[in-house]
């Protein structure tokens, strides 16, 4: 016991000595040693298992043998309810989680562990919390999309005002989700970019267009656009449209000025059973390599050095004006925007 302690502290001294010359390297070594001791981590995820969760884990386990990653896949609500209940019972099982607004109820419950991610040092300031409570892992630009078989090129809307044209009455849809990627985000964008009063006037006119509220996610709404159910849809993710268009689907996403950009983020669970392994995995996910795996799966990565697979989806390389709707901003105003949605559009 004494011997082991001494060896460990000697190791610590050695690492510290190294650390003075190669701080990042030393920290990574320390993290890795801790992760190996823990041997595993549990990731509560809202991402698509086959598309991104498994490829990411596969590469991680290859790179860091001896650290096994298991996951639980569920929508953000279930994920939040789970972590909240585990935390309240003082039995945290999950080590890290992702999602858009998953963070807020858990932060309110005091269940999020801050960690400043080194791999995200070069990320734009909008995409990370300075205190390390959350760091973006994917960018989600929400845009309208048209079915190019059903809509003539000249009729494609170019501004938000064009959505008020009588030809769209009863022929538009959007996802009925209470997120930044749903109607509340759209409403927030209009109010912030047009100003409160002109914005409300616009929204009241838009409400008369009778947009169908589809109780599902962005992708399902886009599928209904592609299948011809609704020729014009709002608030879908532009990368979904780009992927389908690349496969030959008659769809095109629109850059209306400004486009709403929200994002998903990663956070650590407080007092989780495998803190080092979780940190190692977050570092990996947000590194150039990890973000490359995201890009390859069709997501829009956050890392400035990693381009999206289909170019032009991010505001910087797509050259479009964007309203960046951080989870913090959204959380602050969502009650107000949701109320407007409920009052005008449902």
């Amino acid at each position: 016991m004494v011997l082991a302690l001494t060896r460990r502290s000697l190791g610590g001294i050695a690492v510290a000595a190294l650390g003075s010359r190669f701080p990042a390297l030393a920290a990574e070594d320390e993290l890795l040693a801790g992760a190996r001791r823990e041997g595993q981590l549990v990731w509560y995820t809202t991402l698509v298992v086959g598309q991104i969760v498994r490829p990411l884990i596969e590469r991680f386990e290859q790179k860091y043998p001896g650290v096994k990653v298991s996951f639980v896949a569920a929508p953000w609500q279930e994920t939040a309810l789970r972590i909240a209940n585990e935390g309240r019972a003082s039995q945290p099982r999950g080590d890290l989680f992702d999602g858009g607004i998953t963070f807020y109820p858990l932060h309110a419950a005091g269940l999020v562990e801050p960690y400043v991610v080194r791999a995200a040092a070069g990320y734009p300031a909008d995409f990370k919390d300075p205190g390390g409570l959350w760091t973006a892992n994917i960018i989600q630009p929400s845009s309208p999309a048209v079915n190019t078989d059903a809509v003539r090129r000249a009729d494609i809307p170019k501004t938000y005002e064009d959505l008020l044209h009588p030809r769209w009455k009863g022929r538009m849809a959007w996802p009925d989700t209470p997120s930044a990627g749903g109607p509340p985000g759209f409403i927030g964008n209009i109010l912030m970019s047009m100003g409160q009063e002109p914005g409300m006037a616009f929204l009241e006119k838009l409400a008369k267009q009778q947009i169908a509220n589809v109780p599902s996610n962005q992708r399902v709404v886009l599928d209904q656009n592609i299948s011809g159910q609704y020729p014009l849809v709002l608030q879908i993710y532009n990368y979904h449209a780009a992927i389908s268009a690349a496969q030959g689907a008659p769809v095109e996403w629109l850059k209306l000025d400004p486009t709403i950009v929200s994002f998903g983020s990663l956070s650590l669970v407080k007092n989780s059973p495998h803190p080092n392994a979780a940190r190692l995995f977050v570092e990996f996910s947000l590194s150039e390599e990890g973000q490359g795996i995201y890009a390859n799966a069709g997501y829009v990565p956050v890392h400035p050095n990693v381009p999206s697979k289909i170019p032009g989806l991010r505001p910087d390389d797509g050259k479009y004006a964007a309203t960046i709707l951080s989870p913090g901003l959204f959380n602050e105003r969502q009650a107000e925007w949701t109320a407007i949605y409920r009052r005008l559009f449902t």
Partner: protein
Amino acid sequence: MSSPARNISEEPLGAAIPPLRWHVPVLAWLRRGWLGLTVAAIMAALVLPPVWTLLHASFSATQQDLSYGGFTLEHYRSLVQGRNLGNAALNSVIFALLATIVSLVFGGVLAWLVERTDVPLKGLAYVTTIISLGTPYILYVTAWLYLLGRAGPFNDLYRNWIDADAVPFNVNSLAGMVLIEGFLWSPLVFLMLSATFRAANAEMEEAARMSGASIAQTVWRISIRLAWPAILALALFVFIRNLESFEVPALVGMPGRVDVLTTEIYRSIKEMPPRLGYASAYSVVMLLMVAVLLFAYGRISRHAERYASITGKGYRPRPFRLGRARWLASGVILFNFLIVLVLPLCALLWVAFMPFMRPMRWSAVKFLTTKQFDAVLSSPHYLGLGVNTLIIAVCTATAAMVLTVLAGWLAARRQVAGSVIDQLVTVPLVFPGLVLGVALLELSLQSPVPLYGTIWLIMLAFVIRYMPYGMRYAYSGVLQIHPELEQAAAVSGATTGTTLRRVVVPLLWPAIASGWLFIFLICAKEMSLPLLLAGPDSQTISVAMFDLWSNGQGGEVAALGLIWAALMTLFASVFYAIMRRHAAKTFGH
């Protein structure tokens, strides 16, 4: 029966002051009622903790950090003051009532034809039922939305041939909701009524025919009257189920702005933070309503033994000969096959073989791809999920049927604690999935037994959730068995256990088989509970399907769903064949 008499005669005559022997009747009551009390205790242990969570949630304020806030009546107030309340309530009742009728007529006619007549193509009716029950809910609804939708083949055909700009059928309407919900539950009605008709006594029907009654008269005056308690119980059950369902009202009704009472609930639990209290308050109100309905039903069916068709007399039901009407009848079966199975299945196949959703057109055939199926078949991890799911479904169906056969018998025979049991078992019918899930999440985290995150927790949740269904099968089944058979067994010295094992259970086989099959198939596809309760090592197929679906892998979901439904159908068919052979020993057909 004879024990009180014996007690009196054993009383020592002429004793000065007879000691107060209060424990004698209590002991006798306990001896008579031990089974009822045990079952009631088990049911209470299963059902009451989630009821407590439900009540607690309904009176607690919603908090940002997902905990329960202080006491509030806000949820009940917003129920009463809900906007558009009158209209929504009216829509709810119309929707629930009409959908119940669609299910009853569709499933009932089919069950009668298959079980009581010599109609051809009987196998097809079973195949239809099993496959449609095995198909995951969201896939089935999505398929119908696609078929009847604006870009679907029906509206498409109409536009191509008749009027290029018309949309003759709007699926996002009350009619669309009624049709889809009705189709969705007609297999339940079919399975339940086929068990009832199967055990129906043909003697009275034959007597009616001999006295010159037509088939229609016989069916109306004899067959339906005899099955009346079962039909009524079933109608009530389906009605309540429809009244509290929020999937079809949301998926079908919301885009067309048809609001029912549960639309608001759907929205409230999707909010951030989810307003579980509001959903709970609605369930509490439903709970009270169910109690009243069950009480009323109990009064109606008080003389249920009058309807019993399985008596001590020689018993061998014979099918009706339909004569020339056979072909008409087989048309009904074909129609059902087409509507309930072929059409939605075709839509799903189309989606599964397309790289993305598109209208059904010849011009799109060149895009057909097996990519989605390849993706499913080349992922070995689905195997582990499939095994988990099968274990859960088999164990749940078995446990639920064991419990509900006992419960159903105790309730139907008005044994000690019988009516309490009936109420307890029916309670989970009105739990919203998310509320039951949260209740079990909390309880399992506090439980000394390490249940959290295991498949056993999912099983427990399923047993609680699907007991009401098993109960309906068992209860209607017992009503058909005349108590004289059990009395005969008791007189011959059989204990309650022996009577149940040797008399009741063999006669109940058709009901037990149908109930087991129903619960098995529904567990194999249910999503909401595993999403909240599955741990890293207890993931199920439905979690994988939901993950794919909610992230827009529509084609892969359809492919996975179809493969899974095919496997379940195979499994269920083998099981059903074995059960029928088993039942044939008792019923001779």
